[in-house]
């Protein structure tokens, strides 16, 4: 255990900055991601993250050309390049969204196919340009893809010691936050009900392309420091995780921001610790650390899977548990009903022990669920089960009476209002009896003028 955590003992300021950069860019991505998810355009963000490469390459060319033409000095090239990169990415991002849409409309191409054609073509163009003119521009493809999050903190602004990546991603996050707060109503409406949004005068096109432009800007700002992998993952995974946890949009946005931060921290910690663990268990030479950006994406995925399994409302575990509880309740109620009917049919001879033993055996041998349900009823004190068979206690009999009452009232109700075969009453009542509440029972009773017997001629208990 100690050796597993040992890399963390050498945690430095650098590691903290890495987490901060990861968290800031992840949060910046999660904001537009929330709306992309709700607008069912998750893959659009993905596509833009690919096509932005073309914008980045174009920006390199422009800044390089400006230096060659002596418009700017080589010293300012870097800062000019950042601006052109941002503009280039926004232009290409909006362009790819527009191309996809026109291909869909003009060419009758199905939307996902249109998206695929556009993003692969533009990305291929970007790749080709990089390779073809690699001598003139110094872009490392690996850097664009995988990011340089480990070295990003080293590049600081002035003497403040604050890494430039922190400032860039912080500014983008601030812009995204501001826009989300200011345009919250419009964004929400056009995400959930585009038709209503249009009738209320919210321009759908502007919202669509605005969101695409914003996404592209966020992506390209984050690219440099954390690479496109983290960006692709952080755009959709934290919002999707939050979406599984809540039904309210404001809560979803806040949650997705928290999850983004958590993934960044968890990712870097596991990048430091996990590889050692894995490499030792596989038995290869010690590997010190893995790509932090990759691990942050993996951590976000891990959190998503956790939410998918353990979410309070939509989690798989909770849903399975609820289904099990319902099954147990129904099985228990069925046991009660059977006992009640047994006592009803043999009122004179309540001590017919052999029959009771046979009944207990019959009930418990039926299925594992009904055995468990019987056991729970005994624990609760509604049944007394012993060697001499099974008896209803007074509380148990009360519950059983309500159930049988529900069953027979429902049968009577069906008989009064529907023309059905006799067998059908029973079938339906077997299911409905478990879900009738006291109010509905009173309604039924009133509707049927307080009937004494059910359609089969058996007394309806009070």
């Amino acid at each position, binding site marked *: 255990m100690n050796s597993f955590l040992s890399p963390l003992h050498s945690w430095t300021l650098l590691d903290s900055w890495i987490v901060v950069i990861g968290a800031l860019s992840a949060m910046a991505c999660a904001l537009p991601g929330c709306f992309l998810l709700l607008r069912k355009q998750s893959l659009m963000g993905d596509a833009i993250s690919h096509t932005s490469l073309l914008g980045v390459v174009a920006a390199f060319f422009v800044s390089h050309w400006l230096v060659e033409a002596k418009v700017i000095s080589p010293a300012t090239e870097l800062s000019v390049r950042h601006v052109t990169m941002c503009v280039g990415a926004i232009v290409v991002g909006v362009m790819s969204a527009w191309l996809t849409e026109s291909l869909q409309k003009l060419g009758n191409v199905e939307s996902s196919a249109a998206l695929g054609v556009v993003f692969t073509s533009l990305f291929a163009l970007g790749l080709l340009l990089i*390779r073809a003119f690699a001598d003139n521009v110094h872009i490392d493809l690996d850097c664009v893809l995988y990011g340089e999050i480990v070295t990003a903190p080293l590049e600081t602004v002035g003497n403040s010691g604050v890494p430039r990546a922190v400032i860039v991603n912080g500014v983008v996050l601030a812009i995204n936050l501001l826009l989300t707060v200011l345009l919250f109503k419009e964004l929400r409406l056009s995400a959930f009900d585009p038709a209503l949004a249009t009738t209320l005068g919210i321009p759908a096109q502007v919202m669509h392309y605005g969101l695409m432009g914003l996404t592209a800007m966020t992506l390209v700002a984050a690219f440099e420091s954390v690479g496109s992998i983290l960006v692709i993952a952080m755009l959709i995974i934290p919002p999707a995780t939050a979406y599984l946890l809540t039904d309210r949009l404001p809560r979803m946005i806040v949650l997705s921001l928290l999850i983004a931060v958590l993934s960044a921290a968890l990712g870097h910690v596991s990048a430091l610790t996990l590889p050692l663990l894995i490499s030792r268990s596989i038995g290869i030479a010690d590997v010190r650390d893995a790509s932090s950006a990759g691990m942050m994406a993996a951590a976000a995925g891990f959190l998503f899977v956790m939410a998918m399994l353990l979410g309070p409302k939509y989690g798989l575990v909770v849903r399975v548990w609820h289904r099990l509880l319902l099954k147990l309740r129904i099985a228990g109620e069925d046991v009660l009903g059977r006992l009640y009917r047994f006592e009803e049919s043999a009122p004179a001879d309540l001590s017919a022990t052999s029959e009771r033993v046979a009944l207990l055996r019959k009930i418990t041998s039926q299925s594992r669920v009904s055995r468990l349900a019987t056991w729970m009823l005994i624990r609760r004190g509604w049944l007394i089960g012993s060697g001499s068979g099974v008896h209803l206690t007074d509380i148990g009999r009360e519950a059983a009476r309500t159930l049988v009452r529900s069953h027979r009232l429902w049968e009577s109700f069906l008989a009064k209002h529907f023309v059905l075969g006799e067998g059908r009453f029973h079938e339906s009542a077997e299911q409905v009896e478990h879900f009738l509440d006291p109010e509905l029972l009173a309604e039924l009773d009133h509707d049927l003028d307080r009937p004494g017997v059910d359609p089969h001629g058996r007394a309806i208990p009070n």
Partner: protein
Amino acid sequence: MSAASLLAADSMWELFSRAVSLRDYNTRVVLAGTTMLGVSGGLVGTFLILRKRALAADVVSHAALPGIALAFLLAERFSPGSGRSTGVLLLGAFVSGLLGMAMTLAIRSWTRIKDDAALAIVLGLFFGVGTALFTVVQKTKTGNAAGLRDFVFGKTASLVAADVWLIGGISVVVIVLCSGVFKELSLLCFDEEFAAARGYRTTLLDGLLTLMAVTVTLIGLQSVGLLLVVALLLIPPTAARFWTNDLKIMSGLAAAIGGASCAGGVVLSAAFPRLAAGAVIVLTGSGLFLVSLVFGKERGLFPRWRSQRQFEQRIGRSDLLRACYELLEPILGANETTQESLTKFEIDELELSGMRQWPAGRFHGLVSTAVREGLLVSMSTDGYQLTSRGAEEARDAVRHHRLWEIYLLTQTDLDPRLVDRGADGIEHVLDPDQLAELERRLDNESPHGVPPSPHPLAITAETP
């Protein structure tokens, strides 16, 4: 020009001609294998597109990354040096690709997250894990890069013959398999329930299609790179769709486009080694896609624009001729508008243009077209005369219009003032059978004659 640059140009040309003339054994093998890959991609992609699952291939290719890295690590662990074997790496890719596919299915069916988001989530997650594992691989002694990087960006031209035999062989198997179950797959794509009712095992077929798609994606990884391999399955069938509505022709065309773009990409990247091979293959496909988008016979922009234009011209022509007829009708008297008498009178240009609210430019265009087509004859003054063919067509146009007007008046409760407008749109699309039916229903006594207008004639607005 210096000697050095001459030499450079010469070797460049040498390289190019070697590539194009396929003088190298390796280039020939790569060309054949990669072309097979393109053909199988186009074929399988056709069905994938029809089932709207094209982007699933993108997820598979990204999801393959952790599998490749892990397969390398494990192979190196158990028998050092075997990690670079293509078979081992592809096996790892296959397992994790399928795992990624299974996870999208799980997310889609067990949570309330939609299809597209499920794809994006799995893509991000697997790609992240894959990158993390890749850095681990690169830090092992044997693993610095180890050719694994080629899986990301592709390296077509420098593939070794043994790998290409594997790629080509698997492609051929996929092609044969796909052609074998062609009928079943097409039924699956167009009417899944009908296929199930016919007794086909749709789940099995769907699984087979998925398996073939995963296979093509994975064997394409080395040639095109995982970032772009989806294009192999996506671009050819989307391009083929512009040319035809027939699935058989479409799949054949998709296979051809896929093969052509791969072959073109291989030759180009062999000639210009600096170009990224995967990107060249994709861009060749994009070029073919653009050509199809513009010129595709069935859905292409140009043919559609042309037929739209032809239709508009036909409408304009019959509107013009009807105006001529209606101008002459009061002069001749309703019963004297025979084909012969219509050609005898001159029509004043100004009066004609006033018959309908034509924009000036359009009116002149229509008239000059009609003159060119021999429907009108230009007279010395600002006037025209109908030719005998023009008169015939004019009578037809008016007959269509009025039959429909009468039909609307007698059979519907339409306001008589609206009847003219209603007929204006329909008259152009009535076919002979419908006309005969109209005449039968209206008990028209003079078949092929022109019935009188059921309402006073007035200037009509130009139909949009």
